[in-house]
Protein backbone atom coordinates (compact mmCIF):
# COMPACT_ATOMS: atom_id res chain seq x y z
CA UNK A 1 0.00 0.00 0.00
CA UNK A 2 1.37 3.40 -0.92
CA UNK A 3 2.55 5.74 1.76
CA UNK A 4 2.81 9.49 1.58
CA UNK A 5 6.18 11.06 2.28
CA UNK A 6 6.91 14.76 2.61
CA UNK A 7 10.00 15.52 0.52
CA UNK A 8 12.04 18.75 0.65
CA UNK A 9 14.53 19.72 -2.02
CA UNK A 10 17.62 21.89 -1.76
CA UNK A 11 20.29 23.25 -4.06
CA UNK A 12 20.80 21.24 -7.28
CA UNK A 13 17.89 18.92 -6.44
CA UNK A 14 15.58 21.91 -6.04
CA UNK A 15 16.70 23.21 -9.43
CA UNK A 16 16.19 19.79 -11.04
CA UNK A 17 12.76 19.08 -9.53
CA UNK A 18 11.61 22.66 -9.85
CA UNK A 19 10.06 22.66 -6.38
CA UNK A 20 10.96 23.30 -2.75
CA UNK A 21 8.99 20.31 -1.56
CA UNK A 22 6.24 17.89 -2.47
CA UNK A 23 4.17 15.03 -1.12
CA UNK A 24 5.34 11.84 -2.82
CA UNK A 25 3.33 8.62 -2.84
CA UNK A 26 5.46 5.50 -2.78
CA UNK A 27 5.53 1.84 -1.79
CA UNK A 28 9.17 2.30 -0.68
CA UNK A 29 9.86 1.54 2.99
CA UNK A 30 13.50 2.67 3.06
CA UNK A 31 15.15 5.91 1.87
CA UNK A 32 17.30 3.94 -0.61
CA UNK A 33 14.29 2.67 -2.58
CA UNK A 34 12.46 5.97 -2.18
CA UNK A 35 15.39 7.85 -3.70
CA UNK A 36 15.54 5.50 -6.66
CA UNK A 37 11.87 6.25 -7.40
CA UNK A 38 12.27 10.00 -6.87
CA UNK A 39 15.38 10.12 -9.05
CA UNK A 40 13.64 8.24 -11.84
CA UNK A 41 10.53 10.41 -11.56
CA UNK A 42 12.48 13.68 -11.81
CA UNK A 43 15.35 12.56 -14.02
CA UNK A 44 17.95 13.10 -11.28
CA UNK A 45 21.34 11.61 -12.19
CA UNK A 46 23.14 12.33 -8.91
CA UNK A 47 24.10 8.95 -7.39
CA UNK A 48 22.81 8.12 -3.90
CA UNK A 49 26.44 7.67 -2.80
CA UNK A 50 26.93 11.41 -3.23
CA UNK A 51 23.96 12.22 -0.97
CA UNK A 52 23.05 11.98 2.68
CA UNK A 53 19.51 11.45 3.87
CA UNK A 54 17.64 13.14 6.71
CA UNK A 55 14.35 11.95 8.21
CA UNK A 56 12.24 14.31 10.28
CA UNK A 57 15.08 16.77 10.69
CA UNK A 58 17.89 14.34 11.64
CA UNK A 59 20.51 12.48 9.65
CA UNK A 60 19.49 8.85 9.07
CA UNK A 61 20.67 5.62 7.45
CA UNK A 62 19.67 4.74 3.92
CA UNK A 63 18.00 1.54 5.22
CA UNK A 64 16.08 3.29 8.01
CA UNK A 65 12.46 2.02 8.31
CA UNK A 66 10.27 4.85 7.02
CA UNK A 67 6.88 5.67 8.50
CA UNK A 68 3.91 7.06 6.64
CA UNK A 69 4.06 10.86 6.73
CA UNK A 70 7.83 11.10 7.38
CA UNK A 71 9.66 14.21 6.16
CA UNK A 72 12.50 12.90 4.00
CA UNK A 73 15.29 15.06 2.61
CA UNK A 74 17.99 13.91 0.21
CA UNK A 75 20.94 16.19 0.91
CA UNK A 76 23.36 17.09 -1.89
CA UNK A 77 27.02 17.57 -0.90
CA UNK A 78 27.10 20.65 1.31
CA UNK A 79 29.05 23.80 0.46
CA UNK A 80 28.58 26.28 3.27
CA UNK A 81 31.28 28.49 4.72
Amino acid at each position, binding site marked *: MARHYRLLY*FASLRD*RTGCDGETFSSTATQPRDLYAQVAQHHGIT*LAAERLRVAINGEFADWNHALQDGDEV*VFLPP*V*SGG
Partner: protein
Amino acid sequence: MSAFRLSDRELDMRALGQELASPSAGACVSFEGWVRDRNEGKGVLQLAYQAYAPLALAEGERIMAEALAQFAIERAVCVHRTGELRIGDLAVWVGISAAHRDAAFAACRYVIDEIKRRVPIWKNEFYSDGASGWLHPDGSPVQS
Protein backbone atom coordinates in the same frame (compact mmCIF):
# COMPACT_ATOMS: atom_id res chain seq x y z
CA MET B 1 21.26 32.51 22.73
CA SER B 2 22.31 29.49 20.69
CA ALA B 3 26.00 29.15 19.89
CA PHE B 4 25.19 28.40 16.21
CA ARG B 5 22.75 30.53 14.27
CA LEU B 6 21.57 31.28 10.74
CA SER B 7 20.93 34.85 9.64
CA ASP B 8 19.31 36.26 6.52
CA ARG B 9 20.70 39.73 7.31
CA GLU B 10 24.11 41.34 7.39
CA LEU B 11 26.13 40.18 10.42
CA ASP B 12 27.02 42.66 13.15
CA MET B 13 30.55 41.63 14.06
CA ARG B 14 30.82 44.14 16.88
CA ALA B 15 27.79 42.67 18.66
CA LEU B 16 29.00 39.14 17.97
CA GLY B 17 32.44 39.92 19.34
CA GLN B 18 30.93 41.17 22.57
CA GLU B 19 29.33 37.78 23.16
CA LEU B 20 32.83 36.33 23.55
CA ALA B 21 33.94 38.64 26.35
CA SER B 22 35.12 36.98 29.57
CA PRO B 23 37.44 38.39 32.26
CA SER B 24 39.39 35.14 32.38
CA ALA B 25 39.89 34.96 28.61
CA GLY B 26 43.22 36.16 27.27
CA ALA B 27 42.85 35.10 23.64
CA CYS B 28 40.17 35.47 21.02
CA VAL B 29 40.45 33.99 17.53
CA SER B 30 37.86 34.73 14.91
CA PHE B 31 37.34 33.50 11.37
CA GLU B 32 35.46 35.48 8.74
CA GLY B 33 34.43 33.88 5.46
CA TRP B 34 34.00 36.53 2.77
CA VAL B 35 32.43 36.25 -0.67
CA ARG B 36 35.32 36.17 -3.16
CA ASP B 37 35.21 37.63 -6.65
CA ARG B 38 36.34 34.36 -8.22
CA ASN B 39 36.28 30.60 -7.75
CA GLU B 40 38.13 27.94 -9.74
CA GLY B 41 39.22 30.63 -12.17
CA LYS B 42 35.71 31.92 -12.89
CA GLY B 43 34.56 35.44 -12.09
CA VAL B 44 31.83 35.47 -9.43
CA LEU B 45 29.25 38.27 -9.36
CA GLN B 46 27.20 37.21 -6.33
CA LEU B 47 26.06 34.11 -4.55
CA ALA B 48 23.20 32.70 -2.59
CA TYR B 49 23.12 30.30 0.35
CA GLN B 50 20.29 27.85 0.97
CA ALA B 51 20.00 26.01 4.27
CA TYR B 52 17.87 23.13 5.51
CA ALA B 53 17.34 25.18 8.63
CA PRO B 54 16.15 22.70 11.29
CA LEU B 55 18.95 20.25 10.58
CA ALA B 56 21.54 22.99 9.99
CA LEU B 57 20.78 24.46 13.41
CA ALA B 58 20.89 21.07 15.13
CA GLU B 59 24.14 20.01 13.45
CA GLY B 60 25.73 23.42 13.96
CA GLU B 61 24.88 23.31 17.65
CA ARG B 62 26.42 19.84 17.91
CA ILE B 63 29.65 21.15 16.40
CA MET B 64 29.79 24.02 18.90
CA ALA B 65 29.21 21.58 21.77
CA GLU B 66 32.03 19.38 20.44
CA ALA B 67 34.38 22.38 20.34
CA LEU B 68 33.49 23.34 23.92
CA ALA B 69 34.07 19.74 25.05
CA GLN B 70 37.33 19.13 23.16
CA PHE B 71 39.19 22.41 23.69
CA ALA B 72 39.90 24.55 26.77
CA ILE B 73 37.80 27.46 25.53
CA GLU B 74 35.38 29.83 27.23
CA ARG B 75 32.89 30.98 24.61
CA ALA B 76 32.15 29.88 21.05
CA VAL B 77 29.79 31.52 18.57
CA CYS B 78 29.14 30.88 14.88
CA VAL B 79 26.68 32.58 12.55
CA HIS B 80 26.13 31.60 8.90
CA ARG B 81 24.37 33.79 6.36
CA THR B 82 21.53 32.61 4.14
CA GLY B 83 20.06 34.33 1.10
CA GLU B 84 21.81 36.50 -1.49
CA LEU B 85 25.27 37.95 -0.87
CA ARG B 86 27.59 40.15 -2.86
CA ILE B 87 31.38 40.26 -3.25
CA GLY B 88 33.03 41.20 0.04
CA ASP B 89 30.01 40.29 2.16
CA LEU B 90 30.54 38.28 5.30
CA ALA B 91 29.15 34.77 4.73
CA VAL B 92 30.18 33.07 7.97
CA TRP B 93 31.70 34.20 11.26
CA VAL B 94 33.29 32.02 13.95
CA GLY B 95 34.52 33.51 17.23
CA ILE B 96 36.26 31.68 20.08
CA SER B 97 37.55 33.04 23.38
CA ALA B 98 39.87 31.10 25.66
CA ALA B 99 42.37 31.56 28.46
CA HIS B 100 45.21 30.82 26.02
CA ARG B 101 45.70 31.04 22.29
CA ASP B 102 46.49 27.39 21.50
CA ALA B 103 42.95 26.32 22.32
CA ALA B 104 41.38 29.36 20.66
CA PHE B 105 43.17 28.73 17.34
CA ALA B 106 42.47 24.99 17.40
CA ALA B 107 38.79 25.38 18.25
CA CYS B 108 38.22 28.10 15.65
CA ARG B 109 39.76 25.91 12.97
CA TYR B 110 37.75 22.90 14.13
CA VAL B 111 34.45 24.78 14.00
CA ILE B 112 34.87 26.23 10.50
CA ASP B 113 36.14 22.92 9.11
CA GLU B 114 33.24 20.94 10.58
CA ILE B 115 30.65 23.57 9.58
CA LYS B 116 31.84 23.37 5.98
CA ARG B 117 31.89 19.58 6.05
CA ARG B 118 28.67 18.69 7.88
CA VAL B 119 26.09 21.48 8.04
CA PRO B 120 23.37 21.36 5.32
CA ILE B 121 24.01 24.72 3.71
CA TRP B 122 24.55 25.12 -0.02
CA LYS B 123 26.26 27.84 -2.01
CA ASN B 124 25.06 28.82 -5.47
CA GLU B 125 27.55 30.97 -7.37
CA PHE B 126 26.50 33.29 -10.17
CA TYR B 127 29.29 33.75 -12.68
CA SER B 128 30.26 36.67 -14.87
CA ASP B 129 29.68 34.48 -17.97
CA GLY B 130 25.98 34.22 -17.05
CA ALA B 131 26.16 30.67 -15.71
CA SER B 132 25.44 29.64 -12.14
CA GLY B 133 25.97 26.48 -10.20
CA TRP B 134 25.76 24.67 -6.90
CA LEU B 135 29.09 23.75 -5.46
CA HIS B 136 30.66 20.79 -3.76
CA PRO B 137 32.72 21.39 -0.63
CA ASP B 138 35.87 21.34 -2.77
CA GLY B 139 34.53 24.17 -4.94
CA SER B 140 33.74 21.96 -7.94
CA PRO B 141 30.27 22.05 -9.49
CA VAL B 142 27.49 19.58 -8.61
CA GLN B 143 25.88 17.74 -11.55
CA SER B 144 22.36 16.65 -10.63
